[in-house]
């Protein structure tokens, strides 16, 4: 058994490496580490404990993500990890990595605007088209194909696109 010969620090590192490769089932270019859904990995008495946080309360991807983490850890030789869901501090789009934002844009989804302040929620937003980069865009619907996205349209290239909502 691999876990028996690794120090806690090595085990934690190996578990983090494995868990951080798990991708969001709805946005497969983003890993849960890019998204900020993976919060923490701890080792307690030789057992691995992974903490994750949901983007939205009802995010249906969470169960799938838990399962994927278990499988990824198993492949790395780590059996029966505990997976905990933490709510505090709540996830915001600020948890998303810069790398994640770039991957999102390259995938055709406009990344969330940097600040997730409450004022931004009610103010005018300007979202650049991920296809052509134009700022001449308009909101079609606040609620898009998943809880975390809104539907926008670019008036320059005429393409509709998803925007990862500020949260």
């Amino acid at each position: 058994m691999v876990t028996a010969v690794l120090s806690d620090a090595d085990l934690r590192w190996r578990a983090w490496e494995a868990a951080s490769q798990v991708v969001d089932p709805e946005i497969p270019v983003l890993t849960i580490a890019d998204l900020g859904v993976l919060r923490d990995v701890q080792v307690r008495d030789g057992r691995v404990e992974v903490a994750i946080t949901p983007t939205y309360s009802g995010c249906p991807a969470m169960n799938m993500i838990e399962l994927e983490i278990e499988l990824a850890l198993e492949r790395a030789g780590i059996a029966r990890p505990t997976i905990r869901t933490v709510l505090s501090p709540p996830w915001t789009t600020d948890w998303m990595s810069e790398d994640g934002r770039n991957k999102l844009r390259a995938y055709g989804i406009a990344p969330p605007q940097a600040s997730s302040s409450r004022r931004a929620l009610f103010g005018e937003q300007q979202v650049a088209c991920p296809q052509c980069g134009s700022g001449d865009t308009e909101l079609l619907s606040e609620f898009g194909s998943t809880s975390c996205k809104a539907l926008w349209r670019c008036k320059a290239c005429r393409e509709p696109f998803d925007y990862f909502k500020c949260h």
Partner: protein
Amino acid sequence: MAAANITVSETPLVLYTLRRADDALILGHRLSEWCGHAPMLEEDMALANMGLDLLGQARELYSYAAKVEGGRNDEDKFAYLRDVRQYRNLLLLEQPNGDFARTTVRQFFYAAFADLYWRAMMRSSDPTLSAIAAKSEKESAYHVRHSSEWLIRLGDGTEESHRRAQAAIDELWAFTGEMFSVDDSERGLIDAGIAIDPAPLRPQWLNTISSVVSEATLALPDNDWMQQGGRSGRHSEHLGHLLSELQSIQRSFPGATW
């Protein structure tokens, strides 16, 4: 054989948590009834998305209630194995969807309240409740904005949409008082800093409601008489119909899983 109701030991904290969980589940279920029927595709997705937010909040709250109660029940048992009189949701939220105006007004009245309520609950001395509040508050902010925009479009739209929106306001108004009322059980939690008192939120709620309603060229009734009962399990006939659908699988095939 039909599955029997569970019994719940309703300590003040369990009761408090179940009341909020039931609010979220029942309204979330109502919104899900629109799936495939909304007036346009974008709205179909919006209603389902808001329903999903509420379902997520309900799950967190039920799980917490189960933990506080000591683990003999769980989120599924709370949802599927309690009857009408054991449900503790606001009467407003079990009211049928009716037309799109009625759904919009119900959503607007509640979301404008929930937004203020959850924001205030972030100060709860109970760490789980304050974490759930912080999550729910963000989601409610979207729900208020969405339903406000629709109410303005409907009220300030055609003669028909205006008439329907006004009728919905007039019909649902009497259910709004219950959001701000508190009983002895909850008073104790408020005094202990676990819950917040909703009554002082009413002026701010009324302010938001009034400004949107007037922009929508609609009017609030001046009727002050308010209907109550949901918090203590006295419901309208509509909840029974809703639950018979929501619970049908678990009641007919106890313990069925996917």
